[in-house]
């Protein structure tokens, strides 16, 4: 909870500072926003260890292979990064860039899913005796 309060406080202060600075130096406002985002993400990442440990435990429990879990994790990771970078681009007034990031994210997500598809196809081929 304390950590989340830190994150929320950091976000509010960064937001207010950006609001004050934006009319004079928009570049500085953008950089400030980027820096705050990085800090918040770093703070949040420190909580990822227990989550990852739980996921590891569940993976062992269910007997899932990395071939199944890796695309899932990567897809969610790509989704998070795309969301943040797209929002930053929009903040900077670059809507086209934001859309390009989204499309890039979609293509990359499909790309990380390809091993799943090829593994599934090879199993089906094996099962159907092809």
């Amino acid at each position, binding site marked *: 909870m304390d950590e989340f309060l830190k994150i929320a406080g950091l976000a509010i202060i960064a937001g207010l500072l950006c609001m004050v600075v934006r009319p004079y130096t928009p570049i500085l406002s953008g950089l400030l926003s980027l820096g705050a985002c990085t800090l918040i993400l770093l703070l949040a990442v420190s909580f990822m260890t227990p989550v990852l440990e739980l996921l590891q435990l569940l993976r062992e429990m*269910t007997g*899932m292979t990395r071939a199944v*879990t890796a695309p899932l994790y990567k897809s969610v990771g790509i989704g998070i990064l795309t969301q943040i970078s797209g929002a930053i681009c929009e903040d900077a007034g670059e809507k086209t860039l934001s859309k390009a990031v989204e499309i890039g*994210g979609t293509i990359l997500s*499909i790309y990380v899913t390809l091993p799943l598809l090829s593994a599934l196809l090879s*199993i*089906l081929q094996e*099962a159907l005796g092809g």
Partner: protein
Amino acid sequence: MRRIWVALFALVLLCSPICAQGLDEDFGAAALEQKLSEPMRGWMADYSPAVSFDLLHGVEDILEKGLEYGGTVLQDGAATFVFLLLVVAFCKLGEALQNTWTFPVASLTGALAISLYCVRDLHSIINLGKQTMDELSVFSSVLMPVMASAAAVSGAANQAGTIYCLAVLFSNWLLKICNTLLFPMIYVYLTLALADTVLGQARLKRLKEFLGWCVKMLLKGLLSIFTGFLTISGALSGTVDAAALKTAKFAISGMVPVVGNIISNASSTLLSSAAMLKASIGSFGVLAIFSIFLLPFFKIGVYYLTAKLSASLSSLLDSSLSGFVDAISSAMGMILAMTASSVFLCLSSCICFLRTVNP
């Protein structure tokens, strides 16, 4: 003096066929045990088609033996349940992050991950269903003639013939329909469900539902026709047999002078001993069918319930994958229904043989 000799002769006649061993070999009941698979033979080691036993006690015993494997099956079911929920949760997270995206990659990834994890299980469960049906078919190919012979000897020749013909005909039809049509339809059903989830437009939903409906209706239709035929022909031929038996007994006791009554009584005892053997073979058959079906039923049932529960919980999360998980559970339900239909055909035929006219 002549009466005493005839009475002694009748007594010898009465004693010799009651020995179950002799009749057992005649009807081919010994082959019943050999037609069981190795593990089933182990389960059925305490029972023999030649010796009558308490069927309820036998069922309890087989259940106890089957429950020893229950732990592993439940463990597998729990692992599948956790996996399905985990993927659905991840997918929901992905969907929330990608809500502005034009193509829903999260549901594609989730559906593929579930397919990859479940495809081996699904394939092995479909094979388990096929294997159980084959095993039942092999066993009933020996059981039905044995039961029919025993029933015919006990005085229900017409009824035994009718039931035998119906059982063989419908068992073959069911096996053929399942292998050539219904099992491939399940693969198509699952592929449609996967495509439907990936496209996310529910366009293939109707086609998928139609396939599911076809499978259900084919099974229901086949079983209804079988039950209908069995009821009508069984009742008709049963009446014919009962009447023929009564007439024959009456004719023997009335027409044959002096010893007519004795021969008539002796024939009744012979018929009763055949009926007793028929009952013991029938009980063995019912128990063997039960033991063949128990473990596959438990495995498929646990998988079916796991998928059903996961589908219900994922629909609470409003995930697009809930439809796919539901389709998997429906496919499991169809396999369960096919196997159960095969068991129903064997069991109902067996029970009909047991209920044939008794002297």
